C-alpha cells in the first residue's frame, strides 16, 4: 500500500529505543497490540504514557463520531508531513478491516464528495496546522455553521491538537516509519489481519462521562477545566501534571518553551496563561518581553537560550530540516533532556492550538 508521504525526506532516528517492560505492558493493555515506538520515549515516562493516553482512539471521545476523528488524524498527519503517524493511522484503518481501495477513496474524496460536517471538521484541522490559532475564530464559526455542537467542537479541537502533538513527537526524533508503511504489504500481518482487527475492535472504545477528580493548579488548568465531565480532562490533566513535574528540564525552561510557541502562533490567551506562571517563577516582565521579541536575554542560562531557539523551529517546519536541527541538540543535552525537549515542544504546539480554540479566541 503506497503511502502518499513516502517521498518525504526523513533522517535516521535521533534516539535509541530503550525497552521498558512496565511501560510497554501499559501500552499493550490499553491498545491490545505491542506499541514498539514507545521504546523511543521510555527515558521520559510521562511522554511514553502521553502518546498512548491522549490517543483519540481509546476511550476519550464521547460526542464526536469516531470516523470523523480517524479522518482528522489522517489528514492532519498528512498536512504535517509526519510519515510515522500517517502510516500508523493508515495501518490502523487497514487493521480495522478497511480495504486499501477504501482508504485511497477516503483520501481522494477529501476535496470532493464529503458530507458538509466532515468537510468543515477537516477544513478546521487543516487551518490549525497551516495557520494556527490566528484563524481559530473563523474556523470555529464554520464548525458551528456546519451543525457541530459545543461539546463536539471541543473534541474536534482536542483531536486536531493531539494529532499536532503526536506528529511532532514522532517527527522530531525521526521515529522509523518504514516498518509501518510496509506492514499492509507483508505476508504475516496480512495473514493475521482478522485477528488484529478483533483485538483493535475490542480495545477501541468510546469515552464515558468522568468527573474531574480535583481542580488542577498548574498552568493551563483553565483548559483542563473546560473539559470537565469528559475523560479528556483527566487524561490531559495527568499528562500536564507529570510533564510539569518531570525533572529533566526546569519548570522555567518548559514555561519559556510554551511562551515562545504561543508567541509564534500569536495565541493571546496562551500568552496570558504562561506570563502569570513565569512571573511566579521569578522571571520579570522586561526579561520575558526580550525573550519573546528576540529569543534571547542575558538572564537565560545556556540550556534555556538553546531551547527557546529550538522551540520556534517546531511551529512550522520541514521534517528533515527540523530533524537535523534536533540532531544539533544531541551533543549539548543528556538523552532524557533531549527526549523531554521533544515532548514539551510537541505538547506545547498541541496545547497552544487547543487553548486558543477552547479557552477563547486569540
Amino acid at each position, binding site marked *: 500500500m503506497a503511502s502518499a508521504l*513516502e517521498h518525504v525526506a526523513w533522517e535516521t532516528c535521533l534516539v535509541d529505543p530503550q525497552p521498558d517492560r512496565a511501560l510497554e505492558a501499559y501500552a499493550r493493555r490499553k491498545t491490545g497490540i505491542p506499541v514498539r515506538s514507545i521504546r523511543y520515549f521510555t527515558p521520559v515516562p510521562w511522554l511514553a504514557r502521553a502518546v498512548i493516553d491522549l490517543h483519540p482512539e481509546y476511550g476519550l471521545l464521547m460526542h464526536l463520531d469516531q470516523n470523523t476523528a480517524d479522518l482528522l488524524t489522517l489528514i492532519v498527519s498528512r498536512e504535517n508531513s509526519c510519515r510515522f503517524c500517517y502510516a500508523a493511522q493508515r495501518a490502523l484503518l487497514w487493521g480495522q478491516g478497511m480495504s486499501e481501495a477504501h482508504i485511497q477513496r477516503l483520501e481522494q474524496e477529501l476535496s470532493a464528495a464529503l458530507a458538509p460536517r466532515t468537510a468543515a471538521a477537516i477544513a478546521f484541522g487543516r487551518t490549525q496546522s497551516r495557520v494556527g490559532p490566528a484563524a481559530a475564530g473563523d474556523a470555529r464559526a464554520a464548525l458551528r455553521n456546519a451543525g457541530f455542537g459545543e461539546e463536539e467542537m471541543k473534541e474536534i479541537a482536542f483531536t486536531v491538537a493531539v494529532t499536532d502533538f503526536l506528529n511532532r513527537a514522532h517527527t522530531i526524533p525521526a521515529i522509523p*516509519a518504514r516498518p509501518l508503511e510496509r506492514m499492509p504489504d507483508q505476508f504475516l500481518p496480512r495473514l493475521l489481519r482478522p485477528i488484529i482487527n478483533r483485538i483493535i475492535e475490542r480495545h477501541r472504545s468510546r469515552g464515558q462521562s468522568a468527573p474531574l477528580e480535583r481542580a488542577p493548579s498548574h498552568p493551563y488548568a483553565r483548559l483542563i477545566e473546560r473539559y470537565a465531565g469528559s475523560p479528556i480532562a483527566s487524561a490531559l490533566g495527568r499528562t500536564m501534571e507529570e510533564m510539569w513535574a518531570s525533572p529533566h528540564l526546569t519548570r522555567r525552561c518548559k514555561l519559556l518553551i510554551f511562551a515562545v510557541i504561543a508567541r509564534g502562533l500569536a495565541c493571546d490567551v496562551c500568552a496570558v496563561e504562561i506570563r502569570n506562571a513565569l512571573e511566579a517563577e521569578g522571571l520579570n516582565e522586561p526579561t520575558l518581553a526580550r525573550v519573546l521579541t528576540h529569543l534571547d536575554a542575558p538572564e537565560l542560562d545556556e540550556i534555556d537560550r538553546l531551547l527557546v531557539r529550538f522551540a520556534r523551529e517546531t511551529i512550522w517546519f520541514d521534517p528533515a530540516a527540523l530533524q*537535523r536541527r534536533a540532531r544539533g541538540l544531541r551533543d549539548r543535552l543528556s538523552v532524557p533532556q533531549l527526549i523531554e525537549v521533544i515532548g514539551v515542544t510537541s505538547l506545547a504546539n498541541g496545547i497552544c492550538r487547543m487553548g486558543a480554540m477552547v479557552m477563547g479566541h486569540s
Partner: protein
Amino acid sequence: MMLALAMSATIAAVLAVALYRQWQRARNLQRQLRAAAADLEHLQKACARLAPAGVVQSLVADGIRPDVGPTAERKLATALFVDLVGFTAMSERLEPEILLRIINGYYQCVSDAVDEHRGHVGSYVGDGIVAYFGAIQPNPWQCDDAVRAALAMRASIRDYNAELAREGLPTVAIGIGIDQGPGLAGLLGSRARREYAFIGRPVNLAARLQALTRVHGTDILVSEALRTELDPGFILTPMPATAVKGFAEPVVTYIVEGHSAHVDIAEAPKTSARSSRDSSA
C-alpha cells in the same frame, strides 16, 4: 469423449490465461494509478516550495476557474535584497561557462542562507535576489532572521571566494539591503503567469539600500524601521542620512557589523537524502 475433454481443457486453459492476463493488466493499471497519484502528491509538495500550501491549492482551483483573479493579502514582512557587485563588468570579460559556474555558486550561498533562517526566495532579478521573511507564515522574529541570514551570506560568500581563489577564478562581492514594513503578499501576475510575491515600500527600500552599500563602502545595510525591531545584540554602525531615489526624505541606515553573542542551533549534516531506507523499529 476424449476429444470433448481435450477441447474443454483447452478452452479452460485459454480462459484461464485470458483471465490471468486481464488480472495482470488490472494490477498494472492499479500500480500506474498509484504511481500517478504519488507523482501528483509529490508535485503539489514541490509546488509548496514555490508558494504556501494554501496558495498552491487556490492556484489549482483557479486553474479550472480562469475568471478568478490574483489573490493577495496585506502583511507585515521583511524584504532582503542582495546583488552581486560589479557583475556587469564581470559578465563582459568572462567566458559564459565560467560566469555560470560563479553565479550559480553565489545563488546557492544566498538561497541556503535564506532557507536556513526561515526566509523565502521570492525571485531572481538578473544577479539580484529578493527574499522575504514572514510573508508566508506569521513570523514575529522576522527582522532578526533576515539580519542573521545576511550575516550567514557574508560568511558563506567569504568561504566561496576562498574556493574560487583556489581554482584561480575571480572572486565576488555582494551588497545587501533590508527593510521591514507592510506590503501586499500573494499570487500576483497575469492570468497566464503568476508568482508568489511580496510588494510594497519595504521591497523598494531594500533594493535602494542594497545600491547604497556601494556609497557607504559596506556589504549589509538596514533601515531605521528595521533597526528598532532588532535584537540589541547586533552590532550596528549608523550612517549619515542619504537621499535615495523614490523617497522624499533622506534615509537613515545602519551597517551590520555582527552579533555580540550569536547563539543558533546549527543543522546537523544530512544523514540520508531520502528515508525509504530508514532503519527498522
